[in-house]
């Protein structure tokens, strides 16, 4: 594995390997060993051309726990925002000796362009490219689901997961659909028709416009963030209508299965797609997702950078 650009690049085995490695690394983080020397001497660059504190900090924590050196290259005030091209940025980082670049960018496909163009020799990790994918988020979501709902198997067979919200613009949704189905789960998308892409019939999912019809039968509800800007493009008439039909509120929470969990990639719009008491309820694993994010990202960095660059091989 040289890059992590998209979930579709991972086989089921590789995806499970990341989760299992994260499992071991999580124990390390829980225990007294807070720092590991494994990536000592490696330089990891966070290239965040789009604002994001939580993902960047998560990757930074992961890299530092493995003793890698971290350089932060964030959009505001950097040459990226002044119009320096992706190519120039990449070549600059290469000249600085980056072993890996973790890229978050507003353009779909930018991680792949960075990797394909051979502007740099390091590994590229997609931390969210436009509305395309966010692989590490899906991996930490799968990890969280497995941890909380394990049926004894190592994958997600037999579980039913609802992903609710702006699927059209969500890279989290795209990566999760690919990963959760790859790991054997059944996925149902819940959204207003305006927020589902044309071509959704080709996805391996069920689709419904009626949240209440599925909420009682799923094992996990993954709420997606709604962006307020969407209202000016008339995807839905106003916030009230959206919350009424697609928000996770106390009444809906009560109808969930006793073991079902509530998830959200963050940041949340409390009161819009999810009410405060849903977010803070005992079913919510939202904070655990954040913790798991560090372990999963440590696993990704370990598998990409610790060994030699032979393709596809692992012990």
């Amino acid at each position, binding site marked *: 594995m040289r890059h992590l650009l998209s979930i579709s690049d991972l086989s089921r085995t590789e995806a499970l390997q990341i989760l299992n490695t994260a499992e071991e690394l999580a124990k390390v983080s829980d225990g007294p060993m807070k720092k590991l020397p494994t990536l000592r001497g490696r330089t990891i660059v966070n290239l965040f051309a789009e604002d994001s504190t939580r993902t960047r900090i998560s990757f930074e924590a992961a890299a530092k726990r493995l003793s890698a050196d971290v350089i932060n290259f964030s959009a505001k005030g950097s040459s990226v925002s002044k119009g320096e*091209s*992706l*190519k120039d940025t990449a070549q600059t980082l290469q000249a600085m000796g980056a072993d890996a670049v973790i890229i978050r*960018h*507003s*353009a*779909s*496909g*930018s991680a*792949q*362009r960075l990797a*394909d*163009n051979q502007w740099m020799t390091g590994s590229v990790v997609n931390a969210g*490219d*436009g*509305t*395309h*994918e966010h692989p590490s988020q899906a991996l930490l979501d799968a990890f969280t689901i497995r941890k909380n709902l394990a049926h004894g198997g190592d994958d997600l067979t037999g579980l039913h997961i609802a992903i609710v919200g702006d699927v059209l613009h969500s*890279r989290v949704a*795209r990566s999760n659909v690919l990963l959760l189905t790859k790991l054997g789960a059944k996925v149902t998308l819940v959204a207003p028709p305006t927020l589902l*892409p*044309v*071509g*959704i019939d*080709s*996805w391996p999912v069920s689709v419904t416009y009626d949240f209440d019809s599925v909420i009682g039968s799923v094992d996990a509800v993954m709420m997606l963030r709604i962006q307020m800007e969407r209202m000016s493009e008339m995807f839905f008439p106003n916030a009230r209508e959206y919350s009424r039909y697609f928000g996770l509120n106390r009444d809906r929470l009560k109808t969930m299965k006793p073991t079902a969990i509530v998830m959200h990639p963050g940041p949340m719009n409390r009161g819009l797609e999810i009410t405060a008491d849903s977010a803070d309820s005992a079913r919510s694993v939202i904070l655990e997702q954040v913790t798991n994010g560090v372990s999963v990202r440590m696993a990704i960095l370990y598998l990409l950078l610790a060994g030699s660059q032979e393709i596809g091989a692992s012990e």
Partner: protein
Amino acid sequence: MSSTILVAGGELPDGRKCDLLVTDGVISEISPKIDVKAERTINAKDCIVLPGLVDLHTHLREPGKEDAETVQSGSLAGVRGGFTALSAMANTSPVADTAGVVEQVYRLGQSAGLLDVFPIGAVTRNLEGEHLAEIGAMADSAARVRIFSDDGHCVFDPLVMRRALEYVKKFNGVVAQHAQEPRLTMGAQMNEGVVSSQLGLKGWPAIAEEAIIARDILLADHVQARLHICHLTTAGGVEIIRWAKARGISVTAEVTPHHLLLTDELARSYDPVFKVNPPLRTESDVMALREALADGTIDIVATDHAPHPAESKECEWQEASFGMLGLETALSIVNQTMVQSGLLTWSQVADRMSYSPARIGLYEEHGQEIAVGSKAHLTVMNPTATYRVDRDLVASRSRNTPFHGMELPGTVLATIFNGAVVFEGARP
């Protein structure tokens, strides 16, 4: 020009194998064997001799974007592709919306001297879609503009389109519409479909093109004017045009070589060399376009040659410019997709790429049958020789060809313009 050229041993579009003599810019003799000492002899054995190709849709970028292309470099690319006439679209900088700019482009073409450059005039001032440009002045100018187009932009206002269609009737002109409903394509990046749903790139629905085509066909019929549809890309659009022609509505349509071959699957690489307006569509659209070109529903092939400098294509998809090169590869793409597949004969290729474009643009000296007395604009090509497309070796100033690395069938051996050899390729 007092010179003679002998084109020996080639095959004419109608299948006749013969020699052809060009004297003083005109075809002077056609016979099975011409025994004459000409100043120049072209060995056309195994080659097809076509009437000089005419492109009705070319972006030459001059004035204003000479880093991408100039009239000179575009002309060079044109003759390499076998073209003897190009039609320069108006979206230059300044826009070709006055007699002054179109005359400038016309003169640049004349001084390059490789082929005829016919400027296309804008429909509206500055391509803004609000006020008609000085259409009459452009028609009367030395450039004698007959085709008007805001290409790059759609004439979206139905009232403006109606007025334009009516106004050009004065000189038997034609409005060439770039069909793209702006409200349905805000920020659109690629065809809206299965692929775009997976790639997270904003989709460009087929109906954004089809709705405008339908509207303008009905308008053209109502005001009894000629309409030309640029770069048709969808099966739905084909059906609408077929319906219109069956009713005798005076509409013509063009298809680009890239839309005859490439699909939206190529966007999976996120390589902006495949980003084009209108976008690459699906396999079934490609098949429908080929059938339509074969049965004449689509009248012509036009390249929509759109050069862009490296920095406009070596970036993220969203930031990249729309457009692909097309002049140098057009004939071989048509050869591969239409002739080799049995959909078109060479005689029909002569129609789609020479007679009909010249007829639509009213280019009287072009698109003439290969006959004694006709103007000597000729393209000699070897249909079976293949070549590998190399973006570093193109004549264009830009390198954004989507066919880089592909092996294509059909090489242009020679292009004759006005009785002079303006391009001679190497014999394979």
